[in-house]
């Protein structure tokens, strides 16, 4: 489904990524882990088109998307969430989610301005889909009309997931979805992620620091260190890899 082929990315003299190759199969739950500064988010930024890799190729469903603009990749139904919440804080939950859907609106500025016939119909259909597939799924009914900035952090993270889902993605990139959450919020979030993945048959790539979460829910794990992939495989396998333990988990890491 998604293949990164020897991705290089450098900022001036600093090599953020030095030849990272990954392959994610359709339906996989793929986790990327690694210490701070290992290049995890850079990989995401390359996939979603925010950074252009210095060298290397990105293939999505067999097609080379390396040269595509971010919005074109969104149209291919690649959605992502951000490590630091990237929502419109002054707008309502529903409006934020609707913006996630905007890329799929076919009516032009003029038709939407007149808002009659097809444009109105189209928006109603999208709204119904949002209610059915997102608000209901992520249990956002009670905060639908609240301003995002007034919500607690854990909920904002869920709204961010909702905004990404509004794109109706086939590939979902999650950048530390449970960062900064307490145990209960984390459990809720993981439940939601697993649930939407199952219901919407998504392929998920996730960056995560919480080892418990990674080991519990991912099918495959890739470990990055200094812009290079140092290991890849099933969670249990990666967990035992001496190179990984040394580089990332630390000498004392106890397998739970």
């Amino acid at each position: 489904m998604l293949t990164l082929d020897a991705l290089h990315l450098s900022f001036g003299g600093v090599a953020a990524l030095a030849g990272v190759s990954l392959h994610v199969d359709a339906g996989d739950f793929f986790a990327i882990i690694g210490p701070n500064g290992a290049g995890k988010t850079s990989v995401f930024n390359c996939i979603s088109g925010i950074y252009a890799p210095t060298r290397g190729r990105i293939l999505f469903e067999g097609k080379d998307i390396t040269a595509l603009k971010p919005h074109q990749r969104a149209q291919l139904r690649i959605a992502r969430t951000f490590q630091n919440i990237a929502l419109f804080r002054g707008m309502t939950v529903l409006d934020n989610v609707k913006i996630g859907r905007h890329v799929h609106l076919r009516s032009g500025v003029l038709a939407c301005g007149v808002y009659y016939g097809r444009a109105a119909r189209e928006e109603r259909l999208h709204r119904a889909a949002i209610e059915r597939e997102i608000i209901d799924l992520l249990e956002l009914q009670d905060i639908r009309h609240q301003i995002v900035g007034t919500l607690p952090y854990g909920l904002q993270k869920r709204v961010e997931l909702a905004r990404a889902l509004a794109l109706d993605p086939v590939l979902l990139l999650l950048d530390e979805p449970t960062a900064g959450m307490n145990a209960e919020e984390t459990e809720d979030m993981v439940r939601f992620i697993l649930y939407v993945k199952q219901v919407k048959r998504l392929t998920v790539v996730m960056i995560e620091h919480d080892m418990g979460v990674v080991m519990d829910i991912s099918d495959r794990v890739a470990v990055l260190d200094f812009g290079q992939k140092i290991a890849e495989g099933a969670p249990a396998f990666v967990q035992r890899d001496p190179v990984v333990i040394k580089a990332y988990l630390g000498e004392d890491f106890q397998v739970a």
Partner: protein
Amino acid sequence: MDTATLPRLLAAQALRLGRRQAALREKKYGIWQEVTWEEYAACVRAVCLGLAALGLERGEKVALISGNRPAWPYVELAAQSLGAIPLGIFVDALPEQVRAVLEHSEARIVLVEDQEQADKVLSVRDAVPRLRWIVVDDMRGLETYRDPMLVSLAEVTARGREEERRAPNRYDTMLADGAGTDVALLAYTSGTTGASKAAMVSHRNLLAMATGVAQVDPVREGDQIVSFLPFAWVGEQLISVAIALHVGATVNFAEKPETTREDLREIGPHVVIAPPRFWETMCSEYQVRIAGAGWLKRRAARLAFALGTRALAGDAQAGRRQWNTRVLRGLARLLAFRSLHDKFGLSRIRYAYTGGAPLGPEIFRFFRATGLNLKQVYGQTETAGICVLHPDDDVRAETVGKPAPGTRVRVAETGEILVAGDSVFLGYYKDPAATARALDDGWLHTGDAGTLDARGHLVMIDRLQDVLRLADGSRFSAALIENKLKFSPYVREAVVIGADRPYVVALIQIDIDNVGSWAEASRLPFTTFQDLSHKTEVTALVEAVVTRVNGELPAPARIVRFALFDKELHADDGELTRTQKVRRGAIQDKYRDMITALYASTEVPAPPLAAGGVR
């Protein structure tokens, strides 16, 4: 021959109202979806035949563990249609409690709302071998379960439709076999006074009561009712099932429990019944909002309240509504209360009831002063909900009103309230001893102490066993003092003790929200509930409340000492009932040390009182 049953009433209303009127409305996917009377009846028919296909037979029990959603009345009325007996279990019941009820009731089928409740039942099913099927309303998350006991409500309905095609008259035959004297539901009483019992309430009981109430307060066809209190509570059964079926009112279901407040506003119900806690919370919230508002709004609110109170007093004196109080009321509405009613979704209310426990007269008067037609009702599970209520033109805070038509009330020499009439229940399920204690020659012994006044109004004092015999020999209601305390937004719960003791003491639970914001405003840092209730500043705050209340009490009933709970009382810890009423027995047991400490001093200390004594 008494043939009126709830499902027959549904069939009759479906015939009469058909597609003209909505019977149920549910907010789903952000939009209100209507179910007409015809569809309602068709759904009940299908579910009924589906349950029959699962092997359910006349006289067997069906348990329901679900929040307020259409599935509840569907399954309840379906079970009643075939002569089975539904019983409700509160959604927050612990697995152990679920097991106890399933075992006691010998339920064959249980309807569960979702995965959470299904898991609860699955975890105890080995202990209840008589249970055959678990019917699930919302299958979300259960797709991967492979359990032969699980079946979705949709599947049951589908099987029922199939059965209907095969035998189109079967449902009508089953319906014709029902009689009004049949048990319509098993109502597990909330157990403020100990272990819960299952009251057998008949169709006739419920319908007698619905008819009686509708005679006093004519609820009309097409009126909006919001169903948001647990169906396992008899008050909800009365309004959302019996009265709604009786008059053809529309029952609305909120989207989720969390959205109830917002949905209440969207619906604008005409009738609402709620326990005192609901009104107490609303009143506290209003007080806190006003206290935090600007100068102008505060003045407007105070003026509006003064006008409203004047209007009430004027009407009470004249015994009817007059034009000059009408003007006062109108002004008060404009100043503050119109927006208050609007905010809380009370704008269209014709009848609002408070029942289940006594509501403090201060809160009662507050809502009356805002122009809301709030009425006290008195009743219990054993009388199918309401048996005494205020007529529109004779509402007084001190009383709970007059007996509804068809109900007789008298007070025994012991001071106990006795009730007779068509709404008095059949007895306790599998408990003839308790039935014999409760029913004596058609008179129900309520266990409540009260008096009848000159105008035929019932005055409810308290539970017989909670009536305080004070040091000077007079009798006084603990609940009255508790309600005075709870009128303060800072007090969430209060337990007053003093029966057979040298003086009166109180255990108080602060309201974490309101005391929390008070602490924030006074720059008092705190972490948890426990931390907050241990602050000396908070003790001083509550002491001020106690001092104010003492000013309104006769000397022997004054609270001499009080202590604050350092945790929130909770039903899971056995401190509250599932309807959020305090269980005094359990609390006196659990907090014995605290109470002993309050009585530790040898001489009687003076109660805290404002300078100048009684106002």
